[in-house]
């Protein structure tokens, strides 16, 4: 066995409780998946609540800043719960609305991570435009009374859920060395400098550290001025490319919609 994998299993022998939230979440998602025979939803909801509670207990340690901890826990748990409800709801209308709730909660996380411009842009683009157009399409397509049969049956729910939660367990084990080592008032730069080789992504590359626009501390992070400096300075060509991509996508969408109309009549 690979030595890194061996280390992970060694870690697991002491921390079996960390496997409880993914296991409960797997059971909840698998239970709530739409299937032909209706199972009682309350069991799945209870399993999901137990998964969220145990995950909150193991994940969110009480730190220095209570307010940000509480806000982060609230937004994260609400985002996860509404995402689970989105993928398990039988009605695509409600799925879209739960996706809007997930987007708002994720935007709350963006705000906590000092990205107000990105939070506003995401709310405008996703909750404002995309959800409304998807709702229009759902209402266009669902003229008949009742929920369509293809929304009542999931495709291979057990295999897909098992695969997804195996990936999640692998990710959690892989992220375990990055877990905090109980340091209150930890100085970031020292921790980053002392990061071992397994945390190579934590190190700031020297080219980035020498960049005057990415100096830490001269300007508050997420300020529109600094963001604009990065966007229109270093990534100017990428911005132009993104604009071209938007233009091509809008032309393509109009062309596809028009050609399908001509083919139908």
């Amino acid at each position, binding site marked *: 066995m690979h030595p890194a994998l061996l280390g992970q299993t060694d870690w697991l022998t002491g921390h079996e409780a960390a496997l409880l939230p993914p296991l409960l979440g797997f059971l909840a998602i698998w239970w709530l998946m739409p299937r032909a025979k209706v199972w009682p939803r309350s069991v799945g909801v209870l399993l999901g609540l137990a998964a969220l509670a145990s995950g909150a207990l193991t994940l969110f340690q009480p730190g220095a800043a209570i307010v940000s901890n509480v806000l*982060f826990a609230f937004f994260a748990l609400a*985002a*996860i719960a509404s995402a689970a409800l*989105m*993928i398990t709801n039988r009605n695509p209308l409600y*799925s879209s609305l739960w*996706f809007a709730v*997930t987007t708002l909660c*994720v935007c709350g*996380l963006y705000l906590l*991570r000092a990205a107000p411009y990105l939070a506003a842009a*995401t709310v405008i*683009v996703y909750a404002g435009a*995309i959800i409304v*157009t*998807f709702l229009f399409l759902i209402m266009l397509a669902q003229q*008949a009374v*009742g929920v*369509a*049969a*293809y*929304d*009542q*049956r*999931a*495709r291979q729910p057990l295999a*897909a859920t098992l695969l*997804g*939660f195996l990936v*999640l367990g692998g*990710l*959690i084990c892989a*992220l375990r060395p*990055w*877990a*905090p080592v109980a340091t209150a008032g930890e100085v970031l730069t020292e*921790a980053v400098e002392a990061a071992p080789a397994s945390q190579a992504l*934590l190190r700031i590359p020297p080219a*980035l550290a020498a960049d005057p*626009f*990415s*100096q*830490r501390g001269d300007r508050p*992070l*997420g300020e529109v001025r*600094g*963001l604009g*400096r*990065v966007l229109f300075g*270093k*990534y100017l060509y990428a911005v132009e490319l*993104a604009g071209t991509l*938007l233009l*091509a*996508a809008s032309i*393509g*969408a*109009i062309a596809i919609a028009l050609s*399908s109309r001509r083919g*139908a009549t």
Partner: protein
Amino acid sequence: MTAELHNDLIVAAILFVLGAIGFLTRRNLIVMALSAELMLHAVSLNLLAFSRLHGNNEGQAFAIFIVTVGACEAGIALALFVALYRRRRTLDVTAWRELGEEGLPADTSLEEPSIVPVAPAPLEFPHLTPAGRVPEVPKRRAPDRV
């Protein structure tokens, strides 16, 4: 600060996995597209976490590009869904199974009638018991043509 990073990465991993499960299991084209957007959200959250850890704006710039590409993808996907719906009158993705590889065993668990009807509520108006006699309504002459 690394505690923040670790929590962010865990939450983003959970959201990504939920989006992947939705993309794999759901058969409605719209819900599949929404699950793909959920995976994009998770990746942006990762970028923002690293942006905050390193204290510069580059991760946020990448996340803005992700929002741009997500908007393009949603527009194209909607146009395609409208075109597909006009062809087959359904949003079921398994209606387009013949676009896949030939010779695969058919998934027998998906055979079912296309619409499961929900019984509509019976429409009832209150019935009044007839009483008295029917009043005589004087016959009206048809109005003269002008």
